[in-house]
């Protein structure tokens, strides 16, 4: 088949999967969050359990007038949501859903993922600056500071895995986790990296991921009670929908990276060969769902920390710990 046609089909399928899954995550967020608060949440939309609430929400947002402030820098203002959305969705290009189910199997997959996902800070800064709103500006600056600060522990946590796996390809990392680690009797034991001494790295990665996502407890860039909605203040209509969907897509994206790198991706004990190609996506999405639920759970329980506390957490705790983690992993890798 034509390479380009195949690529387009793959991208479209991937996009559809991701966006559908985003809607599911939004629904879970609405519903689980409500129940955690002793409420019911969506109830009427779509009949039973309000399952269509995210669709109805999306339809509502699309109907709304697409406003831009009079003094806004229109071009930048209009471009910002697409930059964020693009950087979020591009991540999925290299996420393997199965041994052969991947859009592009890059040798530098980890590098690509980390590089492309940090582009979203550009979009956020653009949004904050171009809105001609002081709250937006403050929010954009906070976001920039935060994303830069947490990019580092994120990368360092992943680096430890790269050292252990000996490859930067995401497929390779998953395969490394499916390889037999040791044998007990006639049992071949293969464990994901989280059980192979990467637990600290995983925790650091998840903390940094929540910060990257600007979700509670690290939601200062949009802190509703301080900056109204930060860089999102002036957005409405389809552009807000882009940001909104982008937020959940990147929630899935980071969960997917975490699942791939630390939890064994599409791999599951006893699933191999062709089976892995068929069951792989479900296994991966199951792992993503668990991580996403965890992030949602935190959001509905904890308050938000302060900007300076967030920075000191990153620079004085996470980064030194992550560096020490790399050191230990590297030593162990050499010794064992």
């Amino acid at each position, binding site marked *: 088949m034509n390479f380009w046609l195949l690529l387009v089909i793959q991208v479209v399928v991937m996009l559809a999967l991701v966006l559908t899954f985003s809607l599911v995550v939004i629904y879970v967020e609405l519903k689980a969050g409500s*129940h955690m608060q002793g409420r019911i949440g969506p109830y009427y939309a779509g009949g039973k359990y309000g399952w269509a609430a995210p669709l109805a929400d999306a339809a509502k947002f699309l109907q709304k007038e697409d406003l831009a402030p009079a003094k806004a820098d229109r071009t930048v203002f209009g471009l910002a949501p697409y930059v964020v959305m693009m950087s979020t969705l591009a991540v999925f290009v290299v996420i393997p859903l199965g041994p052969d189910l991947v859009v592009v199997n890059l040798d530098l997959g980890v590098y690509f993922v980390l590089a492309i996902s940090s582009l979203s800070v550009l979009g956020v800064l653009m949004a904050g600056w171009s809105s001609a709103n002081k709250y937006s500006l403050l929010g954009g600056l906070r976001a920039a500071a935060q994303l830069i600060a947490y990019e580092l522990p994120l990368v360092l946590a992943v680096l430890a895995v790269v050292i252990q796996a000996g490859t930067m390809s995401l497929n390779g990392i998953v395969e490394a986790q499916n390889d037999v680690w040791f044998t007990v009797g006639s049992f071949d034991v293969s464990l994901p990296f989280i059980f192979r001494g990467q637990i600290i790295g995983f925790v650091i990665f998840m903390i940094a991921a929540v910060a990257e996502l600007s979700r509670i407890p690290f939601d200062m860039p949009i802190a509703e009670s301080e900056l109204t909605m930060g860089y999102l203040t002036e957005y409405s209509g389809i552009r807000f929908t882009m940001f909104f969907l982008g937020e959940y897509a990147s929630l899935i994206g980071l969960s997917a990276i975490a699942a791939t790198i630390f939890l064994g991706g599409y791999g599951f004990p006893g699933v191999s060969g062709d089976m892995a190609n068929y069951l792989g996506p479900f296994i991966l999405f199951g792992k993503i769902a668990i991580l996403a639920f965890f992030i949602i759970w935190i959001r509905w329980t904890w308050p938000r920390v302060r900007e300076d506390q967030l920075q000191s957490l990153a620079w004085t705790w996470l980064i030194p710990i992550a560096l020490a983690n790399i050191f230990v992993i590297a030593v162990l890798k050499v010794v064992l």
Partner: protein
Amino acid sequence: MSDNDAAQDSGRGNDRGAVTEPSPRFPFVGLLKGMGLTFRTMIKRAPVTMYPDVKEIPVPRARGVISLDVDNCTVCMLCARECPDWCIYIEGHKEEKAPSKPGGRVRTKSTLDRFDIDFGLCMYCGICVEVCPFDALYWTPEYEYSTYSLVDLLHNKQKLTEWLATVPEPPYIET
């Protein structure tokens, strides 16, 4: 002063006994405990009334809306005069009433033409109900009369009379 002495005699000093004071413990236990609480809440049934499907029944004394018993009203204007917000509008006229038995005295009776309450102005203080000497006004817990426009909140005699059917029995009294 005497109150001061009394306060000290009764021994009610300041007791700084800490009730809400976090005890020293392993860090971040509080965060996890909180997550436990939200998870427990999530799997429990939500304590809500599904309002438009299931109606909540207010307590009998609830001051929902004022209803009018036209037969009891003598157009004495007391309610309109005592109203702090001036939101009751009453008009009436006197008409002669035929004597009850032949040869009796011709009596004049006041008839109510207009009795409007502007619930956009009303502050639900209940003074009109309390001052009415003839049991013409009652509170009812009825609450579903919101409108899309402020002017629609001016309710007339007929509407106020309809609400009379919803006046509940007063509750028993704690002894």
